[in-house]
């Protein structure tokens, strides 16, 4: 790009529009975070369901895997931020939504334990839907919008499906909200990466 090339009014407007669009379309997500959380929640839900019949003591602590998954998540977030090359206003906002969600979900896990709430799937699914829908809406990424709506639909269904079968709905929610969108994001990311090589 030349620096002092004389621009007409139309060219200036075209340049502004093209640069704004380039920045807008530069949404960078490797899909790894979504795949990580989708896999962890699906695995924990199905393991808890299996353990209802197996009664294997170590599996009672399987949900601690979600706490352990915070470590790779922090590493992924730092790496993605480093390779992005820019900070957007939107990523700060969406980061805040996910942080609020993480705090709310850990707080609710404590409350469910303290208040002895056994049938907690509808509340978890409602919480799953909030950041997923917000991210999909903010990024205009339809699979996450659908994922968020699916979680809320499954939350209503979970009211009528008793424990432990409701765990299948939890796994379904994680599949729709994170695993499938994660796969799609990953595919887009790898495609874009191969075009830049």
């Amino acid at each position: 790009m030349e620096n002092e090339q004389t621009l007409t009014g139309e060219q200036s407007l075209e340049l502004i529009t093209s640069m704004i669009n380039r920045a807008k379309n530069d949404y960078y997500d490797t899909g790894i975070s979504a795949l990580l959380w989708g896999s962890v929640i699906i695995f924990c839900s199905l393991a808890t369901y299996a353990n209802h019949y197996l009664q294997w003591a170590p599996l009672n602590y399987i949900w601690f895997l979600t706490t352990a998954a915070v470590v790779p998540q922090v590493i992924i977030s730092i790496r993605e931020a480093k390779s992005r090359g820019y900070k957007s206003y939107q990523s700060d906002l969406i980061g805040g939504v996910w942080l609020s969600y993480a705090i709310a979900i850990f707080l609710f896990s404590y409350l469910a334990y303290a208040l002895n709430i056994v049938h907690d799937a509808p509340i978890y699914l409602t919480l799953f839907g909030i950041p997923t829908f917000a991210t999909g809406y903010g990024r205009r990424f339809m699979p996450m919008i659908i994922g968020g709506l699916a979680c809320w639909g499954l939350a209503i269904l979970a009211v009528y499906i008793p424990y432990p079968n409701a765990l299948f709905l939890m796994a379904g929610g994680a599949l729709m909200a994170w695993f499938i969108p994660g796969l799609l994001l990953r595919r887009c990311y790898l495609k874009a990466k191969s075009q830049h090589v």
Partner: protein
Amino acid sequence: MFKDLNPILHSQLRLAVVSLLITVKEAEFTYLREKTNATAGNLSVQINKLKEAGYIDVTKSFKDNYPLTICKITPQGVHAFEEYVKDLQAYLNIKK
């Protein structure tokens, strides 16, 4: 009678840089170079001009032993860009 377009912004590369910075909170030099397809030397000169005009803030540091330059638009830069777009709209007779 049309107002003259701001000469600092009415240059292809400087306008491209400011248009990119208006959409993000801050951006690295390499990101701006990639998006504008400019050479490092040329971009560096234009960034300095924008900095001297007070339109952008430039922070220099190191990341993994490599120099890291981060650019951020200032409130003065945002105002200048908005005025530039308004003048451009008047010039092109575009109604909002």
